C-alpha cells in the first residue's frame, strides 16, 4: 500500500491538539492483565467519544467502513455477540456471524483451519469467544487479522472488564482507592479476572467474596482481599459487582444449594440497607433474579446494570476502532514512546 505523506496529515490542524497524544499499539486485545494504566485510560477516553454516536439520529460513523469484522463464537452468547455486532455496524463495518458448537473436535474443523479459511476471504478483525482459555491467543499465531477476545474459558473477558470500569469511572471519576467487591464463582469467572486486573491497575482495592470452594487455587497470590463473609464488608464497598451463578456448572460438590448461596452471598434488599447510600450495583448479565441478586435491587436506584449495557456498546466500538488503528499505524522510526 502506498505510504501516504505524513507531512500532509500533519498539516491538518486538528492533529495539533494541546491534549496528551497517545498511540495505541496493540493489534489484539486478549486480556486486561497486560494493559498499562495509560492504555486502560486511553480505551476509556476513546469510548467516551463513541458514546454519543448512539444518541444521534444516524447512529453510524464511517470509521471502519469497508472493514470486515467476524464474530467467531464457539460458545452460546446472544448479548455479547449482539453488542459486538452492533458496535461493528455503528462503525460502518461489514459483520460476519460465525457460530460453531466447538472447534477442535476430531470430526469438525479445527479452530486454526476455521480462522484461516475466514482470513482467506479477507477479514480485518476477529472477535472470538471460546470455552478454552488461550484460544484467542492461539488465533493470533494462526492469522494476520486483529483478534479481540470476547471471553475465553475462564481466562479473561476484557471488554466486559473495560465496560465495568468505564461505568464506575462515569459515576465516580477516579478509581484510586475505591473499594470494589466482586461476588460469586470467582474460580470459573473470566469477568472476575478481567475486573481484578483492570481495577487493580487503576488503583482500586479489589475484594473477592464467595465460598472458599469457589475461589481460584492461587487466589492469595492475586492483588486482592478475600472475604467469605459478605455482611462484614458490604458497608464499606463503593462498588458491588455480582457474578451470575450457574448451578449446572458448579454442582453441589462445591455449594450445597441455591438457597444457601442466596442467603450467604445474594445481594438482597436487606443487605443493601447496610451498604453505602451511593454504592454502585453491577452485574454482567444475564441476571438470575432472586438467586444472586433480588429483583428490587437489580431494578433499584443503585443499579448500573443497564448503563453497563449501553457502555458496553461504546467500549466495544472503541476497542474495534483502536485495534484497527494499531494495524494501520506504522512503527515509530525511533522506537516506541508515548508521552
Amino acid at each position: 500500500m502506498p505510504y501516504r505523506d505524513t507531512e500532509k496529515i500533519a498539516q491538518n490542524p486538528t492533529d495539533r491538539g494541546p491534549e496528551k497524544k497517545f498511540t495505541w499499539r496493540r493489534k489484539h486485545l486478549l486480556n486486561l492483565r497486560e494493559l498499562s494504566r495509560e492504555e486502560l485510560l486511553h480505551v476509556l477516553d476513546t469510548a467516551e467519544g463513541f458514546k454519543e454516536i448512539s444518541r444521534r439520529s444516524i447512529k453510524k460513523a464511517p470509521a471502519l467502513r469497508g472493514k470486515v469484522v467476524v464474530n467467531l463464537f464457539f460458545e452460546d452468547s446472544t448479548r455479547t455477540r449482539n453488542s459486538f455486532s452492533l458496535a461493528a455496524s455503528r462503525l460502518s463495518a461489514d459483520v460476519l456471524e460465525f457460530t460453531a458448537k466447538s472447534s477442535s473436535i476430531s470430526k469438525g474443523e479445527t479452530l486454526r483451519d476455521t480462522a484461516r479459511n475466514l482470513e482467506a476471504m479477507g477479514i480485518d478483525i476477529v472477535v472470538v469467544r471460546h470455552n478454552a482459555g488461550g484460544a484467542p491467543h492461539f488465533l493470533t499465531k494462526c492469522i494476520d487479522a486483529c483478534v479481540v477476545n470476547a471471553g475465553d474459558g475462564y481466562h479473561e473477558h476484557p471488554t466486559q472488564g473495560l465496560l465495568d470500569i468505564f461505568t464506575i469511572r462515569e459515576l465516580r471519576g477516579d478509581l484510586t482507592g475505591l473499594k470494589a467487591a466482586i461476588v460469586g464463582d470467582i474460580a470459573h469467572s473470566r469477568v472476575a479476572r478481567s475486573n481484578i486486573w483492570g481495577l487493580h491497575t487503576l488503583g482500586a482495592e479489589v475484594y473477592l467474596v464467595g465460598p472458599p470452594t469457589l475461589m481460584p487455587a492461587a487466589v492469595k497470590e492475586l492483588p486482592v482481599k478475600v472475604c467469605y463473609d459478605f455482611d462484614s464488608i458490604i458497608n464499606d464497598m463503593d462498588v458491588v459487582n455480582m457474578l451470575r451463578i450457574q448451578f449446572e456448572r458448579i454442582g453441589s460438590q462445591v455449594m450445597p444449594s441455591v438457597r444457601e448461596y442466596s442467603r450467604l452471598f445474594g445481594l438482597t434488599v436487606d443487605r443493601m440497607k447496610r451498604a453505602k447510600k451511593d454504592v454502585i450495583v453491577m452485574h454482567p448479565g444475564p441476571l438470575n433474579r432472586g438467586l444472586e441478586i433480588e429483583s428490587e435491587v437489580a431494578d433499584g436506584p443503585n443499579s448500573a446494570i443497564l448503563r453497563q449495557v449501553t457502555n458496553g456498546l461504546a467500549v466495544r466500538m472503541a476497542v474495534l476502532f483502536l485495534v484497527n488503528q494499531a494495524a494501520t499505524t506504522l512503527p515509530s522510526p525511533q522506537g516506541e514512546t508515548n508521552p
Partner: protein
Amino acid sequence: MNELLIKNGRIIDPANNVDAIGDILVCNGRIVQVGIVKDEAGTIIDAKDKLVVPGLIDMHVHLREPGDEEEETIASGSAAAVAGGFTSVVCMPNTEPAIDNEATVDFVYRQAAAVDLANVFPAGAITKNRAGKELAEMGQMVRGKVVAFTDDGNGVQNPVVMLKALQYAEMFGKPIMQHCQDDALAAGGCMNSGYQATVLGLPGMTRLAEELMLYRDLQLTRQTSTRLHVQHITTAGSTQIIRQAKQQGIRVTAEVAPHHLLLTDEACQDYDTNYKINPPLRSRSDVKALLEAVADGTIDCLASDHAPHLSSEKELEFLLAPCGIISLECALGLYVKALIEPSIIDWPRLIQLMTIGPAGILGLDKGTLAVGSAADITVIDPHHSWRVCVEKFRSKSRNCPYDGWQLSARAVLTVVGGKIKYQLSD
C-alpha cells in the same frame, strides 16, 4: 570373526564398580574383554576423551504402535532411541489396541526384531484395555516376555483393583508401575494448579492428585511382595513420601523425566502446547526437590516419557491439545544440563540412573559391561556442544519444546548386540 574394539575411553560401569580408562572388545555380539586390549582386529573405534558406558536404557517411552503409526512406529521410535544413545527401551501399553494380551506383546517383539535397532521391551497393561476394572492376562503376557505392568497414561483408580493387581503380580516377580493420578482430584486439569493456571484461566491439576494415590499405593504395596515402581514423579511432596517409604523398607522405586528437572509451569504462559504434559510441569520448588531426590537416591532412574503427537493434534487450543512431548534424541543432553552441569551428581551416578538402575528394577540382564554380557554399549562425548534441531529428529513427530536448546553432551556411538546401530556424523 565379528570384532569391535572400543579403545581408550573412560569406561564407566556402575554395575561392576568400574570407572577407569580402558578398552572393550566385542566379539559375536558379546563383550569378551574389558581392560587393556592388545588385539587390533576388526572395527576399531577410538574413544579417547569419551565415556564408554553400558547401553543406556529408557524405561518409559511411547512407541504408538499398534494403532497410532502416524505419530510414531516401533521403527521410527527405535531409530530415535539409538540416535539418543539408548540401546534398550520399555514401551508403554497405551496403544490401540492396548498391550493387554500375549498376542500384542508378541507383535511388539516381532516388529522390533524386524527393525533390528534398539531392544524394545513391552510393558503390559495391568487391567483389560487399561480400563481399571478387570485384571489383564498377566500370566500369558509374562509368557510372552513382558517386563512390567502399567496402565500408564492413567493410574488405576480403584484401590481394590490396585490391591488385587499387586497381589496377583506376586506370582510373576514383575514390577507394577503406576502413573499416580487420582482422576477425580485432577478434575480435568490441563496444567499444574497454581498461580499460572489461575492467571491463564485454565483448569489446574492439584499436586494432591499425584501424592494421594502415591501414598495409597505404597500402603497397598506393603501388603504384598510385589515391587511398586512409581512413574514420572513431579512434586516435592512425592519425593518426601517416597523417601519415607524407603526408610520404612517398602519395596518402591521411582523415576523422573527430564522436563520435570528443567521446566516449570511458567513455560505455559504463552499457551504453547509444547509444554502441555501429563503429569504437568510444576513449580521451582518442586524442581529443586526432584534434583535433590536424584542426588540422594530417592529416585532410582531417569526415564524420558517420550510421547509423540502429530502437529495437527498439538496445534490446538491448550485445553484440547493432547499431553506429551518427545525427547529420546536429546534426553541424555538434558539430564547432563539438569544434573551434571550444576554439579548435582557426577557421571558415574548419572550412568547408574540410566543403566543398572532401570535394569535392576525390571530384572533385565542389561545395563552392564561385564564380560559375557550382550554387547550393548554407548559411547558418550561429554564435551560435545550441540544445538537441538527438532526438524532433523528421526522420530516421526515434532512435539518437542527443546528446539534450539544448546546442550553439552551427546551419544556418538550406539552399539546393540555388538553391532553399531548409530554413529554420529558431523
